[in-house]
């Protein structure tokens, strides 16, 4: 029964580059039978108002993701590395352009 009611087309995640110089950003998902159709649909659905210059589509099944349970192991080790951030370093205001 559950198999029967599955939607016929797989889910794709859509990423749009809003303009040159910016990253592709995840904007949502859609259904399509294949990649080409997914690109067409993404263009019609997510760029109706000139929102993008480039689109990626990825099968949702193919996205590997860190789970919320991994949060500590994945992200907290970097939380103490303040020295990676420019504001860590105190530079007198009198020094220009830095």
């Amino acid at each position: 029964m559950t198999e029967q009611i599955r939607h016929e087309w797989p889910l794709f995640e859509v990423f749009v580059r809003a303009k040159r110089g910016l990253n592709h950003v995840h904007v949502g998902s859609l259904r399509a039978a294949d990649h080409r159709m997914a690109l067409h649909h993404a263009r019609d659905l997510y760029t109706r108002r000139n929102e993008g210059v480039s689109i990626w589509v990825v099968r949702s099944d193919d996205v590997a993701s860190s789970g919320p349970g991994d949060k500590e192991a994945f992200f907290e080790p970097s939380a103490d590395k303040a020295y990676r951030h420019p504001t860590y370093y105190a530079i007198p205001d009198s020094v220009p352009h830095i």
Partner: protein
Amino acid sequence: MTTEQVFASTIERDQRVEPRDWMPDGYRRTMIRQIAQHAHSEIIGMQPEGEWITRAPSLRRKAILLAKVQDEAGHGLYLYSAAETLGADRGDLTRRLIEGRQKYSSIFNYPTRTFADVGVIGWLVDGAAICNQVPLCRSSYGPYARAMIRICKEESFHQRQGYELLMTMMRGTPEQRAMVQDATDRWWWPSLMMFGPPDADSPNTAQSMAWKVKRHTNDELRQRFVDMTVPQAEALGVTLPDPELAWNAERGHYDFGTPDWAELKRVISGDGPLNAQRIAHRRRADEEGAWVREAAAAHAAKRATGRAAT
């Protein structure tokens, strides 16, 4: 912290719950229901105005209306997409809609009688939707909140095009002015009902407010809508069909009459003027499209197995 505590503190600190986070079953169910009903409303909401695209009396209005109705399909898709992040399946949600197991906004069960209805729907119905939806841009569920931001931006075009059409018609012939007044008379009360039953009869409100999936009560939003709309009606030169409508200086708000809640109940429970027709239309589109969707899936499967995927 336990997962429950993490969830509670996320809500408490006004942060967003994201798809893979732990959430209470009740929260998940409530969000799926709320988002699905919203998505269904966008899709069914295409019908009343969609009927006028081919008959729009100028090419400019035709292009505007077509773009607007197309936006509503987009809104439906953004929302189904948000619901799918919670584990729902669009095909399943559509089936629930056409089997009458999930609801959509009662407003779309009223007929559109003249082209003025297109203007009044933009002004009042999209206007009420904006009032309802702007606070949802801060919904605690991240994908829903993000979809709402995009939708709200697009809705402002919908409301403005409707109001502009009405302004143009009010400058036209006496017959056109009468059409605008007539449409206003018919859509005013159903628009007020879009905010749902009065707070006293709205059992889910308290939990939804606590979870921050709803930010204001039905009555607060309704009052906000009336306060914003009265001056717009005056500027337009139409009369809102409510003899009790009057400024209350003490409250700092407009007083207004009581909508016919019995009518709202009837329409919600499926007995509105066009409930059956709206659902039948959606069902037909879904059924008549089945062979097309199947063929595309079959073609994709053949390509995946027959050749290297491209």
